[in-house]
């Protein structure tokens, strides 16, 4: 008679996979009692064979199951021993991941595209080296116009200069597409000035909207919505002051009510001062005539401001000059992650 319990006890006693294999061979191998017993089955009469066969199978299945269970248990011990011998130091972190950054000027430009895109503006661009006509003449700066003095200009030759404003793109876009037109433009502009608050190169955004019924009320609405969206606040007290630009009439400068405390801009009716933020106006009929648009049929507005200034106000950046120094410490601190793509749907910037 095969002692099932003895076999199972031997399996349970196996301390290693090797011992277990020996126990398996002893229990189920060619020279095992079970194998010998199975061999005797053939000579038995059928009834007896069936009964004896079933009996032996029960033993075999029990042994096999015990071996599997023991094997799994031994393996887990062995693996755990290996794991214990090779611990990972979870306290240690990667040190060297290079984090690329998006410059705040690019980030703000992406934000502006979102905002003005929602109002239906399309982006237009133009060259940085301009001719006198596109930068001045077509914009109603006649030769020797005193307003030219307010735009300290870099000159290339008698007819070429570095654009002092992105308004040249308004001219190029209207020369090409006429009216109606609804564009924004962003790009580098240049003024011959370099001190704590001026750089010889900076960026502007301008908007131009010409249609049959576009009024100064639309200008005000457009600017209000822009400031609300950009600064992410519902209440932007705004003051339009009369000003003068040769290419708009009426011309205004736009102030917002705010307080700047420790670099943080707080906009609202309780602000301590009015801060100039934009220039704007109704496009001068002569400018429309200059690009072949009929001012009796079409009218509209234009506005513009500095992108550096917007970025500095919004993100509390103190020194404009640092924008152009390529200082990795500055860029890493004020820059934005590649994945931080501004969208109106997800909230422009308060992440």
């Amino acid at each position: 008679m095969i002692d099932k319990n003895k076999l199972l006890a031997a399996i349970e006693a196996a301390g290693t996979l090797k011992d277990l294999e020996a126990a398996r061979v002893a229990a189920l191998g060619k020279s095992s009692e079970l194998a010998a017993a199975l061999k005797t089955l053939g000579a038995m009469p059928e009834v007896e064979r069936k009964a004896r066969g079933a009996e032996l199978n029960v033993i075999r299945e029990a042994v096999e199951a015990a071996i599997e269970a023991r094997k799994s248990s031994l393996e887990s011990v062995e693996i755990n021993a290996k794991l214990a011998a090779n611990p990972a130091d979870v306290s240690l972190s990667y040190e060297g991941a290079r984090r690329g950054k998006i410059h705040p000027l690019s980030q703000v430009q992406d934000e502006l595209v979102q905002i003005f895109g929602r109002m239906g503006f399309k982006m237009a661009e133009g060259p940085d080296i301009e001719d006198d006509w596109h930068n001045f003449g077509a914009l109603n700066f006649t030769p020797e116009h005193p307003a030219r003095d307010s735009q300290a200009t870099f000159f290339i030759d008698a007819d070429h200069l570095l654009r002092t404003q992105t308004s040249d793109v308004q001219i190029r876009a209207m020369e090409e597409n006429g009216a109606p037109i609804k564009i924004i433009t962003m790009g580098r502009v240049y003024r011959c000035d370099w001190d704590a608050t001026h750089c010889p190169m900076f960026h502007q955004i301008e908007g131009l909207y010409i249609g049959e019924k576009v009024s100064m009320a639309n200008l005000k609405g457009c600017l209000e919505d822009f400031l609300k969206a950009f600064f992410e606040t519902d209440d932007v007290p705004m003051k339009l002051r009369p000003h003068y630009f040769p290419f708009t009439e009426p011309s205004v400068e736009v102030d917002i009510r705010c307080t700047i405390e420790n670099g943080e801009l707080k906009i609202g009716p309780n602000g301590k001062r009015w801060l100039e933020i934009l220039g704007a106006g109704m496009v001068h009929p002569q400018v429309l005539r200059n690009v072949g648009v009929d001012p009796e049929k079409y009218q509209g507005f234009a506005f513009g401001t500095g992108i550096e200034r917007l970025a500095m106000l919004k993100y509390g950046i103190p020194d404009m000059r640092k924008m152009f120094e390529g200082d990795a410490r500055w860029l890493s601190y004020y820059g934005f992650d590649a994945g931080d793509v501004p969208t109106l749907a997800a909230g422009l910037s308060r992440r």
Partner: protein
Amino acid sequence: MKFTLSALKRYLKTTYSAQELGDALTMLGLEIEDVIDPAAKLGEVVVGEIVAVEKHPDSDHMKVLKVAFGDASPVQVVCAAPNVKLGLKGAFAKPGTTLPDGTKLKTVKVRGVESNGMMCSERELGISDEHKGIIELDKSAKVGAPVAPYLNLDVLFVGEITANRPDYLGVQGIARDLAAGGYGEFKGVKMPTIKAKFKSTIKIINEASDVARHFTLREIRGVNNSGSNAELVAYLNGIGAKVISPLVDMTNFMCNDMCRPMHAFDADKIKGDIVLRHAKAGEKFAALDGVEYVLNAGDVVICDDAGIQSLAGVIGGALSACDANTKNVLLESAWFEPAHIRKTARMLGINTDSKFRFERGVDAEFVVPGSDIATSIVLDICGGECGELIESGKSVYKPYTIDFDPAYFVSRIGVEMNANEMKTLLERLYCKVEAGKGVLVITPPSWRADIVAKEDITEELARIIGYDKLPSEPVMPTDFKPVLTAPQRKKSDARRVLASMGYIECYTWSFENSKTAFVGKGVKLLNPIIEELDVMRTSIIPNLLVACRANITKSVRALSLFEIGPVFFGVKPEEQKVYASGVSYGVAGDGAWEIPNIGVKVQDAKAAAWAVLETYNVNVGNLKLSVEKLPDWVNPYASAWIYQGPVRLGLFGEVHPMSVKKFDVKEKVVFFELDLSAIVVKEAKSTAKKALVISEYPSSERDFSMEFADSAKMGEVKAAIVALKNPLITNVKIFDVYKGSMGIRLEIGSMDKTLTDDEINSAVAAAMEAAKKLGGKLRSEFS
């Protein structure tokens, strides 16, 4: 433009405060940058009376005073001022008072004697530089009362004048606009009656009447120009202008007060007649500012027999300047062509109050009245008698009318207003307004030459009613088309791709230093901001190297920087390109434990370039490299041009060590520079992708290793195997590169079945054959 409240009030009857008037002007279009009210800082200083004076026991020049200042009993004060005397009433600051310069007074001991406060000088109160003695007030001053009202302090306004409003360059014009805005009543200007006593012998010969359109002189004989006139001195002090002599002070007063620039010649220094003519190039002129100018052809000069006495409208001459001994004077009042004045002054680099006004256009109708007023002032303050006006030309002002449809205003501004309201407002601006057929027929006043068309009328009405009355209407979109064109969007995407690869974005100048420029000759600036930024850049790499250098000095030991921006090969729009450029230096990860300690490789730059190109939908599999005619600023053994067919898209590799040295950089720097303008962005026509077919059968991997004599060809080996287009080779990967040998791993599989060994081996053999053709020798084969 600076002006005082007292000057303003000579023209304007008003009850508004200085601050209110300043705010009103800002909203009318004259931006007031500062309202300086010295009285506002004197709140705590009171009238004090010296009720006792004794000698200081330990000083010869100091006195010990008792000062009474109201209800409290008199206090002891030590004072060194020479004008101390019993009964003097002055400005007393008691301990605890903060003076305008921020000093807070305390009780102190002066050479052992206690002093409780200070009797102040004008300088100590910040109202002038006077510091010879303490302030002496009128006897009637009330002891203990705030001192400010007894000091006759004026308020100074500092405003920014826009180029279209020369009328704002005189106090008179500012007052007129405040009155139009409803901030008071304009008092007008009282015109004097001038009685000429003689006819001058001097004649005007005007050979430059194209510029000097209206030119007048008046001779005044027997003047006394010594000393000074208190009223003019106070006026000029009030705006911080220099006091010179009564005659010159008068011209400066006329300029600031009435926007009527004038010039006073010493008549005794004028020889013969006055000739106005265009200068010849190179003529020299000694001006009042002590500078000798070399004139340009065409500049208009005012001459006598002795030479040039004045540069018309810009600056007077040294030769005929008035001084204390001047007995006879010649007063000039004129109107010059504005553009000419600006050009002359701009070319010579001169800025004067006179030029600033003439170039903007002064009131053409005020040439003669201005001369009359100036003459009467001279007769008043310097005495003498005047001659008849000598005149060339006449006023250039010709009245003109503008037809204005009230509906135009409503449409442009969005505010309802009827014709009668408009008429009232315009008349307040001294426009003549008559009713025409459905329009208002408007004649602007002579001093508003900026009002020429209906848009100008619109602006006048809008600013007088105030922009705060404007309604607000939102701007709505009309379609769902993208805001950005394809290249614009790609540019923005490329930035984020590079940032995701560890590159930090920079914005550097569009200028560079011609001495360290890498590529060709940049467009030169006529007036660079500094010598080191004298040309427009032709590559972004030099500017990025400048940034590398700055970071290295700040101990940033490893860095990748990029910039996407313009470069310039000419002044035409198509010669201005957009480049994407990047540089890297240092050890990857800057020695972090988890990263193998290896320095930057050209492949780092290549990977970034390829990522940008893929963003632009360029099929990078078809790009070709070339090492033909590499520029001398790159390491020719570690750089290559990138071509898409015949179009050169850029360059990558290592900056030549000799080139980085120019920027004081010793590190190895790898770079890429792509011409984004050269890429034609092909946008997918359809958003749907072709259906993906993937094999259901397992694939096999086979590795083999080859040696090459010329290690530069390894990238081509892979390309050659790919180019076989063997349907069973589904992937090729270089898994090892060491000196001249490379390990290649093939992935072999089929869409239709599990491959047999023979089929696999034949695919491997084909790949090896391709590699051998490129000079490879088999080292080993593994599986």
